[in-house]
């Protein structure tokens, strides 16, 4: 059921759909990049960018609450945890 409400922030539906398709393609490209990058540190940076892309995806699909969670966890906390783990394991290898 669609509710036709026009606010100052209403955008044309074609524009919204184009935006959604663009972001979906970007997310697919980002996920592929994360898998294909082999060096762990670079991979973590790519994962962080991918987290931001996912956050934008949730935003254009009208889930701002999930956007906030994904931004904080996917783009910030998860990369920090992974980077610290990498730092620890690298020290042990030396």
């Amino acid at each position: 059921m669609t509710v036709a409400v026009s606010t100052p922030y209403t955008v044309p539906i074609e524009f919204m759909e184009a935006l959604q398709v663009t972001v979906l393609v970007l997310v697919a490209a980002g996920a592929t990049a994360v898998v294909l990058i082999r060096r762990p540190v670079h991979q973590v940076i790519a994962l962080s960018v991918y987290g931001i892309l996912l956050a934008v995806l949730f935003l254009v699909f009208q889930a701002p609450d999930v956007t906030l969670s994904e931004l904080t966890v996917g783009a910030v906390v998860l990369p920090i945890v992974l980077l610290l783990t990498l730092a620890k394991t690298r020290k042990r290898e030396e």
Partner: protein
Amino acid sequence: MTSSQRRWVFLAGMIGLVAFLLWGLLGLPGFGHYPGPYGSIINRIALRQTNATGTVSAINFDYRGFDTVGEEFILFVAAAGVSIVLRRLRGEREKSAIDEAADRNAPPTSDAVRMAALVFTGPLVVMGWWLTSHAQTNPSGGFQGGVILATAFILVYLAGEFLVFKRFSPVALTDAVEAIGAGGFVAIGLAAVGIGLAYLTNYLPKGEVAGAVSSGGTIPLISFFVGLEVAAAFILIVAELLEQTLLIRQGSA
């Protein structure tokens, strides 16, 4: 297992997975066609029942508050698990943090990083508390706000030293805050049982104006405790990992 056998096992598994995925995808409702009744019902009654314009928060902290208790304890247990796994083991020794700071040969943190971290720490604390305290009015809430509060502490580490980070967030205090956050949520629910209502019933006055900060009854209160719990849990997890990376070495003291 030889590599060709492994490939066959992989291919069989992949074909099965793809078949199940396609089967599931074909059964999905069309894009934008939500079939269930609950979303429409909630959209119609949530604002009237709770006076909270953040309908998502109203669902998270009120209608399905019981699930959110469970989710919160997932994080609680995860933080406890990290603490236990990353404790100092037999055969490991802990370097003195002070000595480490004095003669470490790591390159010093660049001024740009220090400056950026200093500039953002204050605004992040404000933003974290704002998100935590406005669950009832917009799609924020204790989870998002709590994580942002925790990142403010991580910036303290980036701007300064591990020791400064530890001084700002001593483990005993972080542990206590996490326990208060988790316990507070459960206590709000039990208080409802105490006055003869179902667990986690929203029993506080909902406020006069929909969308006001004072509206929503127990929703902002629960969001506050969730914020405490989440912030403390993430600070604990990062602190344990930092300690493991910077201080703990193999070999006995």
